[in-house]
Each structure stands twice: as C-alpha cells, then as structure tokens.
C-alpha cells in the first residue's frame, strides 16, 4: 500500500512540475467555473421568469369577470415549464423545447418558444454547459495528464529500474491509477458545489450524489483507457494521437451517427401530419358546440331517460353543458391516444439512440446525466402530460358550471340582446376550477431508475477497462 501511495505521489509531483498539465487543469477549471456560473444564473433567471409568468397567468384567469363559461374554455390558460433544480448543471433538453403551452378547450397545442429558436446562431457546439464541459473536455484533460504515466517511465528508462526493484507491473498501474483517480475527484469539486447549490433549491441528496457518481464513473473510465494505451504503446505522441482520435470518434462523431440511425430506425411523422389524420377520428365524435349534432342522439335519449322528462327544456341541467362535457371527454380520449403514440415513438427513438451508449460512453453519460438532472425526454413528456391533465380538468370544470349553473333557456337566448347576454353568465367564482400548475421533476429514485441502463453501460466500459488494465499490467515490460 505504501508503495502504491509513493507511486501516486511521485506522479502528482511530476504533474505539478509539468507546464502542460498545470495549464490544462487551470483552463479546464476556469471554463468549468465560468460555465457553471453562467448556466446557473441563466437557469435561475428562467425559473424566476417562468414562475412569475405562471402566477400572472393564474391570476389573470381567476380575475376574469362573470361571463359565459364556454368563453372561458376558449379564453384558456398558459402553463410554464420551470427548470429542475439540477438544470443549473445540466439543462438537458431545456434549450430545444418550448417553455410554455397554451391550454384551451378542444385542442392540444404544442409547447412554444424554445431558447434555441431565438438565440444567436453561432454553431452547433455553442450551447456550452458545465455538464458538456465534463462530458466533452473532461476526457481530454484526463488524457492530457494520464497519457504519459507509463510510457514516460519507459522512454526515460526508469521502467526497467522500477520493475527490477520488485514493483510489479500491476502495482505500478494501480499506483498511477490512484494518482489519476485523485485528480479526477479534484476535477469533480465544481460539480460538488453545483450539487450542493441544487440542494438549496429542493433537490434530493440521492440524485445529487448519484450525479457525482456517474461523472466519477465516466472520467475514471477514460482514466483507465488512458493508462491502458500508455502501457501498451511505445511512443508518447502515438499514444496521445490514438487517444485523441478515440475521443473524436467516441465523443463527437459516434453520437451524431447514432442520431441519424435512430431517426431512420423509428420514423416519426410531424404533429401537423398526425393532427390531420386525427381529424378524421374527431369528425366522427360530433361538434360539442352543436347539441343537435346526430352524434349526440344517444346521449340525449339517455339523459332524458335518466331524468324522466320528455324535452331537453325540462331537464334540471343545461343540456348544452352536458353535451360540451361529453364531447370534450371523447375528444380528449382521441387527442391523448395520438399524443401517446407520438410520445411512445419519441421514446423509442430515444431508446434506439441510447442503445449506442454501449459503443459511445459519451452517449451513456449524457443520458444518465439528463435523466438524473430531470431534464430528459421523460420529463418533457411528463410536463406535457401534466399540462394536459390540467387542461382537461379546468375545461371540464367550466363545462360543469355550464351544465349546472346556467339554464338551458338562458343559454339558448344568449345572443338575443344585451340583457339576455348578461343573463347567460355564471359568476366569477366558478373560475376557481383552475388548479395551480407546479411542475416538479420525478423522485430521485425514479430518475435513477430511468438512468439505470446508461449507468449499466458505463459500468460495462469500466469493467472492460479494468480487465484490459489487469491484462496489460501482467505483461508490462520495459
């Protein structure tokens, strides 16, 4: 053990004297701290702004005067997607998905206004976040520091000396690995601060810890890969070139290729296209604005029978409201069916993409990081579902007051003159059917569950490289 510590310590001494290692580390840390601060500030501003808009939207809805309930169905409501606490580290999908949805009767609108649609167009890699810095540049820094670990001893002739002293190849590698591991832990300090900060915004300790855990796994994996090539190849610059080429392939190129393949594997039609197909199903349901639509014949018969009356005028409830409620229910069924198909396909595409994490650890870490941070596709779908639930609830609440609080006669005469118009209103307390929208990420356990497969992939790489290192340690020769 003492031997290992000595090897590790001497590696650290070497780094502190190496101009490249020092400047690389300083640059990385500066980049990381700056992006952490900027991303954190942006996330904070966004959270603040969206919460403000959310409250404002709720207040305006509730402040509406007495009016016909169906007008409120069309008046609608806005919901805003507030970023998860860990978005300050990994905003994930946030820049490419809409921030708000307009909720109204009879329709499911898409989320509008994504950051990427209005931000300055300065190229594909300009969306730098702390998570990206770790995923893209963490490996490069580890390569920069670790690539010489074994080969340096070989080039300077000290390797033969060390091995002759009775230090086994394996313990040499373990010692160097220990040094690299300590360095990686040091690199994770800014992430630790982000994680602690997210705790003050209501993040769970478990997810903060597992986020640190997956990045430790990812960077250690690169550390081991570096040591592996450092011990099997003979020339320092060849090792550096091999590792950089691997980095280019695994981190930059493979994920993009995987996107193209995943897109082909699961074809996904656009929303307008599926909406048009959906229209055919919707037409069969009948228009809820028209109680005389033949589609509601059965409903009419049932309701007359239920209340044992002859004419809808004699019903104790407003038949128009009943129709509106019924039509909205059926319509929402169809809308949700199509939305589910769409989300399932998107999830299948995401799955097809994440399968390539077995080949590219960058894909695996990015998936795990988004899942744990609560900024992945799963959470976007969750937002869409919760928004839809809210929409359906308030629309049905309004339809309910349409049926209960407004008589059929008053409702039919609403356009006759101003006085009848005033009569066909319900009081503003009925708007309180609107629930507060508070979008929260899933529980830490659920999120870690979502990241499970990606974590397995990282573990697989980890185990594979341990085996490779053990093998290369045994055959290490000067």
């Amino acid at each position, binding site marked *: 053990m003492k031997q290992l510590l000595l090897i590790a310590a001497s590696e650290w001494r070497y780094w502190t004297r190496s101009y*490249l290692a020092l400047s690389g580390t300083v640059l990385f840390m500066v980049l990381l701290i700056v992006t952490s601060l900027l991303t954190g500030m942006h996330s904070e501003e966004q959270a603040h702004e969206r919460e403000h808009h959310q409250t404002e939207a709720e207040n*305006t809805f509730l402040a509406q*005067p007495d009016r016909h309930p169906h007008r409120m169905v069309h*008046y609608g409501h*806005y919901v805003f997607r507030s970023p998860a606490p860990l978005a300050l580290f990994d905003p*994930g*999908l946030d820049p*490419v*998905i809409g*921030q*708000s949805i307009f909720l109204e009767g009879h329709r499911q*609108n*898409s989320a509008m*206004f994504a950051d*990427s*649609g*209005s931000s*300055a*167009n*300065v*190229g*594909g890699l*300009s*969306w730098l976040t702390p998570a990206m810095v770790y995923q*893209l*540049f963490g490996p490069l820094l580890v390569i920069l520091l670790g690539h010489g670990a074994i080969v340096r001893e070989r080039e300077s002739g000290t390797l033969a000396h060390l091995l002759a002293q009775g230090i086994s190849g394996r313990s040499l590698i373990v010692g160097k690995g220990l040094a690299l591991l300590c360095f990686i832990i040091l690199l994770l300090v800014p992430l630790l601060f982000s994680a602690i900060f997210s705790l003050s915004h209501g993040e769970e300790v478990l997810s903060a810890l597992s986020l640190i855990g997956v990045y430790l796994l990812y960077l250690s994996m690169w550390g081991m890969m570096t040591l592996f090539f450092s011990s099997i190849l003979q020339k*320092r*610059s060849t090792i*550096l*070139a091999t590792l*950089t080429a691997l980095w*280019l392939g695994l981190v*930059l*190129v493979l994920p*993009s*290729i*995987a*996107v*193209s393949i995943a*897109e082909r594997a699961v*074809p*996904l*039609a*656009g929303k*307008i*296209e599926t*909406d*048009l*197909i959906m*229209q055919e199903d919707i*037409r069969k349901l009948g228009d809820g604005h028209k109680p005389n639509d033949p589609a509601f014949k059965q409903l009419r018969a049932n309701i007359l029978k239920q209340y044992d009356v002859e004419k809808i005028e004699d019903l104790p409830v407003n038949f128009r409201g009943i129709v509106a409620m019924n039509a909205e229910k059926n319509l929402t069924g169809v809308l949700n069916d199509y939305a589910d198909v769409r989300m399932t396909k*998107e999830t299948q*595409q*995401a799955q097809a*993409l994440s399968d390539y994490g077995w080949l590219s650890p960058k894909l695996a870490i*990015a998936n795990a990081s988004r899942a744990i941070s609560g900024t*992945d*596709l799963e959470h976007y779908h969750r937002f869409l579902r919760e928004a839809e639930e809210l929409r359906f609830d308030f629309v049905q609440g309004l339809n309910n007051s349409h049926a209960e609080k407004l008589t059929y006669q008053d409702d039919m005469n609403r*356009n006759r003159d*101003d006085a009848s118009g005033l009569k066909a209103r319900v009081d503003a307390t009925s708007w309180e059917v609107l629930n507060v929208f508070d979008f929260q990420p899933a529980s830490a356990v659920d999120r870690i569950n979502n990241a499970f497969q990606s974590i397995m992939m990282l573990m697989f790489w980890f185990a594979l490289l341990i085996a490779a290192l053990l093998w290369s340690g045994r055959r290490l020769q000067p």
Partner: protein
Amino acid sequence: MNLLSAIIREAKFMVRDRAVLVWMLVVLSLSSLAVWSGMDAVEHQRASIERLETADREDRMIQTSHVKSWGSAAYYGFHLTYDEPSEFTFAAMGQRDLSPWKHRIRMLALEGQIYERDTGNPLLTLVGRLDFSFVAVFVLPFVLIMLLYDLRAGERVAGRHDLLVVVAGRDSSFWLVRAFIRAFAIFFCLTTPLFIAGIVAGTSYTTLVFASLFVFVYTVFWTLLCYWFASWRLSASVILVALAGAWITLSVIVPAAGRMSIDRIVPIPSGADILMTQREAVNDAWDLPKATTMNAFWERYPEWNEYKLIEGSFDWNWYYAFQQVGDQKTEPLTIAYREGRLDRDRLAGMFSLLAPPILLERSLQALAKTDFNAAMAYEDRVRDFHAELRDFYYKKFFRKEAFDKKLLKDLPVFTN
C-alpha cells in the same frame, strides 16, 4: 529544385504513409455517411410535405363542405404553409431542426398560431445529427491536426529532420508542400461525396463551387495553423495539445462566449408576453362596444369603413375584425421580437469573423437556405399569406357577397 517534382515526390511518400491513408478513408466514409444521412432526412421532409399537401386539401374540402357562410368558411378553413428544403439542404440542416418550417394557418389572429412548433424529437435535435457541415466544420480540422502536428517533430525525433532540410533545400517550402499535399488529399476525400450527392440532388454548380471554396479556404486556414504550430521547436505532444486547445477554443469556447454575450447584449421580449397580450386583446373585444374594435380595425383598413354595424348580436365581420385588432395590439412586441432576433443574427454574423468554424457553418447554412434568414423569410411568407387570406375574406364580408361555395376555389394558395 522545382516545385512540381517536390509535389510528386511528396505525393509518392504520402501514398506509402499508412496513417494518411487511414485518415483519408475515415474522412471519405464520414463524409459519405453524412451526405447520405442528410439526403435521407431531406427525402423524408419532402415526402412529409407531399403527404401533408394531400391531407390538407382533403381536410379543407371536408371542413368547408358543410359551411354556410364566408365567416364559418374562414373559421374552419386551415391552410398548409411550408418551407420547401432547397437542393443543398442535405449538406447543412441548420435551423430546420430548430425552427418550424411548416404551419397550418387559418384566419384567426396570427400571433396565436405562428409560434407553434412542429419540430422533431427534441432529443435528436439536442444531440445533433451528422451532416456534411458537421464533418467539415468540426471533424476536418481535427483530422488535419492529427496528420500535421508531428510534421517536423516526428522527423526530428527520428533524427532525419536536419538531413531532410539540407537535402530538400529551402526550409519552409518543403514542409509546406508536405503539409498541403496531405491537407488537399483530405479535402478531396471530404468534398467528393458532396459533389456526387450534389449532382444527384440537383444542386446548382454555383452552390457546389461556393461550398467547396468555403471548405477549401477553411482547410487552408487549419493547414497553415497546424504548419505554424508544427514549426515550433517543441515536442510533438506539446504541439498536439496546443492544436487541440486551438480547436476547442475556436469551435466551442469562442462560439459559446459569443452566444452568451450576444443574447445578453440584445434582449428580446419574452414569448409569453406576446401571447398574453394577444389573448387579452382578442378576449377583451367580446366585452367591448363593437364600435371600439371596428374603429381600431378601420384605422388599418379604411377602405371598409362604410360598413354598418349592429350592436348586440354576433357578427362575423366584427369577429374577424377583433382577431385582426388582436394582432395589431401585439405588433410592437412582435416587431421587437423580430428585430431582436435579426439583430442577434447580424451580430452573430459579425462575430463569426473571429472564429472560422462559425463562419463556415453559417456560410454553408446560408447556401443551404437553412440559416436564420431563411427561417425568418418563411415566417414573413406566412405573414404575407395570412394577409392575402384576410384580403380575400374581407372583400367577401364587407361587400356582402352572397356565400357561394364554388368561389372558395379562388382562395389564395401558399406558394413557396
């Protein structure tokens, strides 16, 4: 020693250099894969447009088959608008993955419709697809770095450096020839698939020539940078690290800094404010005296101000007038949003002069018509189309033309 013989000699060397051949093969396959994937995506978009056109026509026919007035025809009639991909879109998908390129529009207030986003899977957008511009902008420099960083240091270590310099004569030209021969070999591997795909896709030769010219200049830039770094009397590792650092700085750090500062320098109104303002305006109109709405409408359309309105009952003319007035009230915000985005793009254009990767990416997007201007031009075309639609119906409404379903065939059609 003349240049030609130097070139031939170096070319012979290169053909025997396994590393160069491997990298050439890598670039050739990546470029082929990229153009193929781009063409496939464009093919997919075209097929989607075709299906949409049919479905849209059928849907409008059904929707308008039971309407009995101009007002309800306008209410139920949706119109497909789209931005057709250009013959070069396959090379740089650009903003087409981020901004909407299709909308179904009807005559209601436009501000409530134009910000809808029918974009693909956000996860795929975030990770980013492999297209030619990605390979040219990000992968090409890296490959050049890998091939050129030990141009001299490698020979120095092998002990051949000084000998080579003595034999080859003038110092710099010899290394320069070697560097450029390798770079051009990579350049040809990169652009050959582009040309083939361009010919298949029917891209104009000017576009292809310009695109390869841009990539050529970019190749020369990186080759000179590598050549300069490689001439330092330092170890190959240090040179490689320095070049990788330059790549990171120019491709990632400078763009990221640029985007963040531009977005801060040019604030834009929040989308939420546009939507809320529009909704309040449209909604309030129900409770306002009709004359208030009509007066605001007539300010914009004085030609229809002879229309007599009847207070108290529902009237399509008034209904569409308040939709129009809703858009009018949002106009200051809409203009600020539009101008803000244009300003950001202008600044980004100037900023790109600092970082060749951004410059190349933006130039390729401009050629492919997938840049911000193209997205904006499409938005403008949708606005124009909406205006045409309104003109068509306003004439019917205010001239009190009797409703005739047959006349719906004269509806304006969105053209690309």
